[in-house]
């Protein structure tokens, strides 16, 4: 406890805003990401509440020509807010979320390193995210964009809104993602402490490593796609333009060649967090360590060959459709391996229902629904029916929110004592879980039914028959909002008046818990030497 003696840690070693904005310490950069990503999440969340608010009631025109039930000024406003919700949540919240915040702070700690391989690049990638986000915010608030986050051609070429600057903003945030991934791969290869073999790495590190491979290999395709779209809009180069013999569907192929692997960029780190939580709070060695590690790599590999399932109805050949359908179902195998191993880990464990574990269990429950509906959507005839309906919206929210966001919350609560050296109020953390979990299901389960009834996604209004379920869904979104406000309160309250956290409050076995809470600037007093696997609970 040499450092604790004089109370110096990474949070208080240097003071002042400038010391934060120029810090090369991976933990401080993680905190920078934490603050910025949470702010983006707030904005994206407000957009979501506005969308749900608009859909609360069926918009009717009464006998006097007066519109009732309308919240937003116009359908165009709805389209814009929809675009902002999607773009913010995807590019600025869920993609950087776990790797850039929790990964930045805990990847070096978990492998016993002093820092990531390229600290300057790490800071640069935060500035890339901020530059991209600033450009995106500037575009959103000074003009408008209404294409949805997918920027599909030909509409994105024709739209009179500021698509080009928005696309460039996404390009720059992509740079940030590439640099983070690159940094993590080299860190894992080169900076493991003595005794930390690849097969002794915590599963969170395995998940981040697999994610980083996708980030490095897939994001450049998004970069060129977005550049070509910008070129198409400025110079009309013709590649996506049928008038010149180009093909708008090629844009979809390019876009999903990145964006489908990107959904695994979003979910793999979440799975890594869940592996840590389940084993810690079951006080039991993880079941099937090797299988879970390989399944992360397996998901990363298969993720590159499934993009065509977004285009079952876009005019690709039937044969291509069948192949993509089969490959998509294949993703279910490594995913199920993880699910079964987590459940097997809990079997006969001494489970402690602490708030991080509640989020992990929430993840298992919700992600199972999200995953199985994904398999349903991989079946071509089913997809033809469900395509572009609320069924798809519900499916990917179950995966992205029910999966990734639950894991982010669980991970925050789990590592909060290590990050800030304080404990939070367990009561309020559990309350936030109750509201988020219940609210989530109330919001999104009705959307499965609405989708099956045929309600199309992305629309400003609907037929009266859809109104009751939409009302329930909107009320659920309020519960989620309350849940996140409680989580915010829990965090702030913990920061201000939390009790001092011990080194290892949960009895975890991984290396980061051997550092002080909060860790010193150099992470460990002495370079750790590892002699055993990461989860050897007695």
């Amino acid at each position, binding site marked *: 406890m040499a450092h604790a003696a004089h109370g110096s840690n990474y949070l208080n070693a240097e003071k002042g805003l400038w010391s934060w904005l120029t810090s090369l310490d991976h933990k401080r950069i993680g905190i920078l990401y934490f603050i910025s990503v949470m702010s983006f999440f707030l904005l994206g969340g407000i957009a979501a509440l506005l969308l749900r608010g608009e859909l609360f009631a069926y918009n009717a025109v009464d006998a006097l020509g007066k519109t009732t039930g309308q919240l937003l000024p116009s359908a165009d406003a709805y389209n814009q807010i929809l675009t902002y919700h999607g773009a913010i949540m995807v590019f600025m919240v869920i993609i950087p979320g776990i790797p850039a915040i929790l990964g930045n702070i805990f990847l070096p700690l978990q492998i016993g390193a002093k820092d990531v391989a390229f600290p300057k690049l790490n800071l640069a990638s935060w500035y890339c995210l901020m530059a991209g986000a600033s450009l995106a915010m500037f575009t959103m608030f000074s003009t408008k964009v209404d294409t949805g986050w997918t920027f599909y051609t030909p509409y994105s070429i024709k739209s009179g809104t500021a698509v080009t600057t928005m696309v460039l903003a996404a390009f720059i945030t992509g740079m940030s993602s590439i640099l983070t991934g690159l940094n993590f791969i080299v860190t894992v290869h080169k*900076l493991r402490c003595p005794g930390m073999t690849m097969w002794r790495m915590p599963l969170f590190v395995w998940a981040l490593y697999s994610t980083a491979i996708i980030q490095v290999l897939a994001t450049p395709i998004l970069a060129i796609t977005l550049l070509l779209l910008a070129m198409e809009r400025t110079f009309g180069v013709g590649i996506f333009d049928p008038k010149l013999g180009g093909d708008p569907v090629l844009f979809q192929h390019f876009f999903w060649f990145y964006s489908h692997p990107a959904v695994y960029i979003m979910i793999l780190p979440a799975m890594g967090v869940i592996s840590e939580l389940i084993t810690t709070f079951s006080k039991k060695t993880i079941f099937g360590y090797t299988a879970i590690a390989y399944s992360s790599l397996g998901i990363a590999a298969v993720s590159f060959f499934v993009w065509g399932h977004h285009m079952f109805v876009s005019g690709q050949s039937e044969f291509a459709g069948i192949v993509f359908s089969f490959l998509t179902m294949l993703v279910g195998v490594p995913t199920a391996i993880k699910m079964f191993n987590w459940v097997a880990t809990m079997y006969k464990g001494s489970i402690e229902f602490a708030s991080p574990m509640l989020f992990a269990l929430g993840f298992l429950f919700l992600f199972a629904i999200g995953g199985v509906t994904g398999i349903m959507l991989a079946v071509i005839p089913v997809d033809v029916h469900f395509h572009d309906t609320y069924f798809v919206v519900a499916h990917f929210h179950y995966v992205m929110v029910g999966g990734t966001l639950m894991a982010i919350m669980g991970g925050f609560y789990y590592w909060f004592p290590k990050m800030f050296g304080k404990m939070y109020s367990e009561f309020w953390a559990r309350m936030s879980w109750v509201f988020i979990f219940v609210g989530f299901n109330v919001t999104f389960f009705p959307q499965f039914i609405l989708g099956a009834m045929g309600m199309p996604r992305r629309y400003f209004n609907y037929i009266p028959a859809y109104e009751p379920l939409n009302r329930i869904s909107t009320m659920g979104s309020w519960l989620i909002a309350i849940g996140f406000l409680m989580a915010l309160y829990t965090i702030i309250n913990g920061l201000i008046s939390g009790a001092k956290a011990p080194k290892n409050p949960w009895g975890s076995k991984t290396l980061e818990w051997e550092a002080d809470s909060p860790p010193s600037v150099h992470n460990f007093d002495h370079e750790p030497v590892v002699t055993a696997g990461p989860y050897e609970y007695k």
Partner: protein
Amino acid sequence: MINGVPVQEHYRDASHQFASAKEGIWLFMATEILMFGGLFVGYLIFHMKYPEMFAEGAQFLDWRLGFINTLVLIFSSLTMALGIYFCQINQPKKAVGALAVTILCGAIFMVIKYFEYTHKFHMGIFPGRMLDLEMLNHHLHEMGKPAIVSTNLGMYFGFYFCMSGLHGIHVILGMCMISWCLYRCMRGDFNPNYYTAVEGVGIFWHIIDLVWIFLFPLLYLVG
């Protein structure tokens, strides 16, 4: 500092740091190749669809200029490699010379590209739907050549300008980074134990060179 090498504290020694930096550079090169890969895939698809149109477009490119540029870039790869070699054998003055020649080659490449581009603009050749077919046919008529047959010639030039343009941006970036290496070399930063920056920029330069070696036949010789 270990043996005159600035080693960051999270590395064991200079060679550990060097190996990590090199791996990082190679990963970044993978992203560069994949980014160009998107254009190559697009080219492949539409070339299969419209081979005659691509052939018709390629005749407006002067293969001799492209060939000279290819030679210039290959030569610059040699001088870049020499720059690294001279750093390794501790002859910084020669290294400065080699890097200067590399920058010069990059400049020659860009000047030739500039003349190629302006000539095309003069003919009315612009990317995609900005292609001025009337102006181009007028020029062809004056030269006694037949008018354009393809209806979508703009797409070929869409590819031409996107691919050579993105490559050109990388050449300029490479020249900037080599200039930075040259400055550091003149300052005496590099020695046989530490020349990471030159090595990394060298890898970048070779990859950019390699991309051009693929672009040259695809764009100039496809007819």
